[in-house]
C-alpha cells in the first residue's frame, strides 16, 4: 500500500484546515468583498476608453481573469516559505527530516489536504458565482479540461518555486523579506495583478519566457478561450510541463545540496 501514506497526509490536512471555521468564514467574506472592489475598479478603468475591447480583452474577460486569479491565489499561496523558514529557525526541521519520506514530498502531501478544501470551498464557489454573474461568459466545454490540467501543473510550478525560496531561508535567516519579494515578483509577472494582455509588448515578450506566467496566465487564458486551436493548447501546456519538470529538478537538487550545510540550534 504505497499510496496509503499520501492519502493519510492529505486527510490530516483536510481535517486540520476544517478546524478553523471562523477564520474560514472571514476568508470567504473577505474574498467576496475583494471581488466586488475589483469589479468597481475595472469598471472605472474601462469607462475611460471608448472601445469595449482593449488588447483583445473585454471588461467581462478582465473581470473573470482577475477574479479567478485571486481565487487561484487563495489556494496557491500556502505560506510554505514561512513553514520551512520557521521550522529551520526553531529546529523542528530535524524531526521532519527523520520522517521516512523525502522532506519535499512530505510537505507537498501535507499541503494537498488544504489544496483540496480550498478548491472546494473557495475556488469552486467563486467560479460558480462568477459564471452566474457574468451570464455564462465563461465557456463551458473542452477548455475546462485544459484548465484543470493547467492548474495542476501550476500547482507543481508554484510549489517548486516556493520550495526553492524556502531553501534560500537556510542561508539568509530572513523569512519576511525573502517571501515578500517572491510574492511581489510572482503576482506582478504572472499577470495576477494586471492581465498580461495589457503589458507593453517588449515587457510581455520577456515575461512570456519566465516561469511565472505559467502559474496564473496560462490556466486563465486556456479557460477564457472557448475553442482554442490545438497548437495553442499544446504550446501552453508543453511550456508549463517543461517548467514544472525543470523547477522540480532544480528545487530537489538545491535542497539536497543545501541540506549538507544545515546548522540547527536545538529543536
Amino acid at each position, binding site marked *: 500500500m504505497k499510496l496509503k501514506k499520501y492519502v493519510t497526509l492529505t486527510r490530516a490536512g483536510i481535517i486540520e484546515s476544517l478546524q478553523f471555521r471562523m477564520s474560514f468564514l472571514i476568508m470567504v467574506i473577505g474574498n467576496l468583498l475583494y471581488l466586488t*472592489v475589483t469589479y468597481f475598479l475595472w469598471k*472605472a478603468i474601462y469607462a*475611460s476608453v471608448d472601445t469595449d475591447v482593449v488588447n483583445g480583452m473585454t471588461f467581462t474577460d478582465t473581470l473573470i481573469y482577475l477574479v479567478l486569479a485571486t481565487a487561484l491565489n487563495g489556494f496557491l499561496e500556502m505560506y510554505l516559505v514561512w513553514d520551512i523558514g520557521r521550522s529551520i529557525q526553531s529546529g523542528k526541521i530535524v524531526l521532519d527530516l527523520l520522517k521516512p519520506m523525502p522532506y519535499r514530498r512530505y510537505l507537498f502531501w501535507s499541503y494537498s489536504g488544504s489544496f483540496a478544501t480550498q478548491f472546494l470551498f473557495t475556488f469552486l464557489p467563486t467560479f460558480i458565482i462568477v459564471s452566474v454573474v457574468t451570464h455564462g461568459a465563461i465557456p463551458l466545454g473542452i477548455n475546462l479540461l485544459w484548465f484543470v490540467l493547467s492548474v495542476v501543473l501550476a500547482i507543481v510550478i508554484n510549489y517548486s518555486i516556493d520550495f526553492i525560496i524556502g531553501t534560500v531561508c537556510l542561508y539568509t535567516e530572513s523569512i519576511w*523579506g525573502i517571501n515578500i519579494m517572491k510574492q*511581489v515578483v510572482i503576482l506582478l509577472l504572472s499577470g495576477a495583478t*494586471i492581465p498580461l494582455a495589457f503589458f507593453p509588448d517588449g515587457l510581455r515578450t520577456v515575461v512570456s519566457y519566465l516561469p511565472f506566467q505559467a502559474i496564473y496566465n496560462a490556466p486563465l487564458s486556456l479557460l477564457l478561450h472557448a475553442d482554442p486551436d490545438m497548437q495553442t493548447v499544446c504550446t501552453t501546456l508543453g511550456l508549463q510541463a517543461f517548467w514544472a519538470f525543470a523547477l522540480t529538478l532544480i528545487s530537489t537538487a538545491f535542497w539536497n545540496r543545501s541540506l549538507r550545510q544545515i546548522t540547527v540550534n536545538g529543536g
Partner: protein
Amino acid sequence: MKQKGFGFYFRIYLKILAQDLKSKMSYRADFIISTIGMICTNIAGFISFWILFRRFPSINGWGYYEILFLYGFSLVSLTPVQCFFDNNWSLRQYVYSGDFIKYCFRPINLFFYFQSEVFDVKGLGQLAFGLGTLIFAWVKLGLGCSVLMILKMIVFLLTASLIMISLQNAAAATCFWIQNSFYVMDFVNRFRDYAKYPVTIFNKGFRFIFTFIMPIAFIAYYPSLVILRPDAVPLLSWISPLIGILFFFLSYKFWMFGALKYSGTGS
C-alpha cells in the same frame, strides 16, 4: 496611581527602542533583505500603475500623476503604523501562548508597553519611496509650494496615519476573542491596498462602507483632495483629522477592553 506624564513615556520609549535596535542589528542580513523586500513591494505598485496607464488614460477622471500622488500619499501615511505598531502582528501569538500576561504586570500603560517593544526599521524604506513618489507627482502636477500647503500636508498625513493605526489595532485586538486573528489582519491589510484609488469609483453603498465602517477612504482620498482638488473639497476632508482622532480613541478602547479581560492560559 499617579498619572505618568508624556516625558516619562518618551524616555521609556527611547530606552526600549535602543534595546530593540540592538537585537535587530544582530540579524543584519535579515534587516537588509527586509528593507529591500519592502521597497520591491512599493516599486511593484508603481510599475502596475505605469503598465495600466499605458493602455488606459484615466481612472474615473484621475490621471496618472494624480493616482501616483494618492499612491505616494498612502505609502507615507502607512509609515507610522509600519514602524511603531508592527507588534500588533505578533499579538495573537502572545495571546495564544500565554506570554501576553507579562505585559499586564508592568506599572505603565499596557497598550504603550506592548507597542513600544518593536520598532520596524523597514518602514523607513517605505517612507523614502513614498516621499519620492509624492514629490515626483507633486512636481509633475505643478502644484506649487507654500508653507500653508506643507502644513496641510503634514496635518492630513497624520490624519491618514491615525486611521490606519486604528484599523490595525482593531483588527489585531480581535484575537482576544477569536483564536486566529491573522485572517482579520490580512483582510484589513488587503483592503488598505485599495486606499490608493479614488473612492468615487464605488457605488453609494460601498462608498458609505469605506467612509464610515472601514474608513480606508481617509487613508489617501479625502485628505488628498485638499491638495489635489482645492476648489471642491467636501466637508468630510476638513473634518477628517477629528475622525482620525475619534477612530484612534475607539480602537484604543477596544484593544484595552480585550486586553483587560484577558485571563492568561494558566501556565
